[in-house]
């Protein structure tokens, strides 16, 4: 019984936190290159709306996913353009993307509100892995493909970051762009790709919401998830595997809080993720020793050769 509670909670947590994990990983990837992206929320919602429109029009959720990823990638490239090439304030650029994305998605999705997706993604079990006791029911069965892919992507991303030349390049660009530059690495190209890829993942996170989790479109349906993902990246100390752990923990808190449904008004329960987020950040800050070695050293700074 208790085991079922545990696996069931984990499974629901994964379903809930899949978009958070995608977006947080995107943020980690971008921030590891030294660019802060406050536009995650905007990228997610644009992914959600384009994904939905394309899926509904074409009848294929996979085409929708592709569209969402493309939009996320493009918006990411725009952010890179502003942050790297124009050397604009990264905070303002990200905020602009979020505010614009929220507005534009409302405009684009205006005629699609309240029309459930006809062909949404389907849940499935992972062959073999779903038979593992405990882990199988908890993480590898009854989820949408994108949830499994999130887990896989985290492992791949972690491996790329820490065990490949490409990851070394990316991390160096985020830690010391001058070192990367003198080593002959293009800081600009690396940052463009990282922020673009980050946007792509945020777009996928948004598409999960509108194509799988709640196969429909509602204005503002990301509801701050992009911002929570930003906090998760910090909480996870910019590590993809920790981001999965943090996302699951977050989802578990949220799932469990619904057991209090009878005693608490729904508005206050809906509020909880935002309260958790603040708590998570405070906890991270209290573990100050770790934090000092957490954020990439060049995070938020534009780089230009010869200026220090």
């Amino acid at each position: 019984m208790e085991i079922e509670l545990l696996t069931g909670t984990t499974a629901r947590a994964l379903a809930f936190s899949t978009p958070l994990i995608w977006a947080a990983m995107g943020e980690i990837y971008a921030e590891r290159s030294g660019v802060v992206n406050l536009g995650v929320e905007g990228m997610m919602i644009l992914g959600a709306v384009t994904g939905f429109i394309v899926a509904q029009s074409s009848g294929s959720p996979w085409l929708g996913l592709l569209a969402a990823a493309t939009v996320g990638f493009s918006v990411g490239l725009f952010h890179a353009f502003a942050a790297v090439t124009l050397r604009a304030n990264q905070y303002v650029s990200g905020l602009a993307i979020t505010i614009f994305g929220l507005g534009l998605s409302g405009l684009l999705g205006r005629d699609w509100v309240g029309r459930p997706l006809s062909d949404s993604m389907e849940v499935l079990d992972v062959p073999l892995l779903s038979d593992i006791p405990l882990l199988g029911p908890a993480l590898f069965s009854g989820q949408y493909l994108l949830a499994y892919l999130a887990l896989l992507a985290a492992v791949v991303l972690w491996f790329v970051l820490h065990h490949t030349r490409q990851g070394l390049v990316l991390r160096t660009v985020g830690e010391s762009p001058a070192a990367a530059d003198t080593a002959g690495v293009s800081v600009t190209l690396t940052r463009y790709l990282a922020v673009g890829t980050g946007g792509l993942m945020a777009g996928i996170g948004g598409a999960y919401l509108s194509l799988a989790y709640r196969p429909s479109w509602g204005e503002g349906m990301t509801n701050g998830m992009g911002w929570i993902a930003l906090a998760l990246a910090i909480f996870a100390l910019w590590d993809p595997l920790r981001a999965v752990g943090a996302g699951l923990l977050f989802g578990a808190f949220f799932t469990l809080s619904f057991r209090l449904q009878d005693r608490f008004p729904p508005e206050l329960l809906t509020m909880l993720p935002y309260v958790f987020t603040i708590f998570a950040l405070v906890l991270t800050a209290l573990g100050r020793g770790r934090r000092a070695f957490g954020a990439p050293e060049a995070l938020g700074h534009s780089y230009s050769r010869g200026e220090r």
Partner: protein
Amino acid sequence: MRPPAPSNIPILSIRGIHKRFPGVVANDDVGFEVYPGEVHALLGENGAGKTTLISILYGLQQPDEGQILLEGRPVRLQNPRQAKAYGIGLVAQHFHLARRHTVAENIALGLPDTPFLRPTRKLEQRIHELGEHYGLDVDPTARVWQLSPGEQQRVEIMKALLQGARLLILDEPTSVLTPQEAQRLLKVLDQMTSEGKGVIFISHKLNEVIRAAKRITVLRKGRVVGRLDAAEATAAGLARLMVGDFEPPRSKKTPGGERSVARLEKVFSRNHRGLPALRGVSFDIRGGEILGVAGVAGNGQAELVEVVSGLRRPDRGHFTIMERDVTELGVRALLDRGVALIPEDRNHMGTVPAMSVAENLVLRQYRKPPYARAGLIDWRAVAGFAKQSIARYEIATPDQSTRARLLSGGNVQKLILARELAGEPKLVVAAHPTYGLDVGAAALTHDLLLSQRERGAAVLLVSEDLDELLALADRILVMSQGQVAGIVEAASADREQIGLLMAGTNEAAGAVA
């Protein structure tokens, strides 16, 4: 000019390099050659054009005119990647290392044959071998932030060598080294030149250049003003070439007062990363005395300056000004008690570049009358003070509402001196006050510090320039590993002794660890 080995083709030969920036000619018809097996020194003051020349040689900037030949072939160096491909390596003054990465990771980044998977595998062995060959031992798995500046420099040299450098450019390599470490570096360079590599050694230190180099090219204000063999060079001759007609600082008088102005007793403190930086520092400065502080960068001097000026509270120990305990007081209270600070970083701490000259002149006195009353600032009083200071210190500025950002380095320092010395401080803390200044501004700074001493103020002068300390200070305190390694009388001190003190506890601590 006769080349030392006529049969050889120079590794590098540059001719007629010109480089202009708005308002400055950084390089004006610069040319020289580096032959295989030669250490070639580029000597010049800050601002003589050395840095620009390096940037050009490493492809970071392109010359407006002129030619670069590598082994007789003209080349265009458009970026560092090309420079490296031609076998040019650079060890810059500020290391380009990712501090949280390991040594091997830092080196792997720049190598063309680094594998995609697990980039540092196989590299550790190569680092060991090369380290033994040249005497450059570093632990490839150590993280860069754990290394001393000297070790980090070895990583940079190693990086260049593994990238196949045949010509190594070292920019002010000894500024972060103890004299003993510098000696060791020269041995490394010997090994390299014996294999036919070339080295460009950039420095502004005369004796060192004579010891290290085979030939010397002297730059002044962007032009080559002398080329000579090191064997024929003398320090005095080089100095004349380097700075033109220059009066050495005037001779010192004996200290005036005997009263203790500031005293530190067993002060402990941490740095901004929470690591121990000062470990039981004690000393006493009297009025009318200049106490010099020497040491290799990063041995607690920065934290000492912060503690003495109130920017950092000590963890333990006592700090007194005029026999009153001020250990727990902050920067504002110490300012009120007559502690002036001439900070190292003139553009981030010493001034606010976006604010006007007048505002910067009252940056620290704005709270008190006549500049402020009842919380309101009296801009007329500020303007009056600004006018007076600009005239007295001859600050070159269009007017007092000009933003400080538009001032030259020397004038920014004059502005800071005008502000800090205005209230007749009892203790003047000067951190690297002449670093990066032209000769005129440096001389003025020296004069002002000496006149503060004559007035009876105590001066704490922190500098990495031993010549400056020997010329100005009455006593020199040597710091090493956050401790006072020794205090010597400047009149009877010699470099060797100070060098040993700078290294002393360094090596002792290393033996224990």
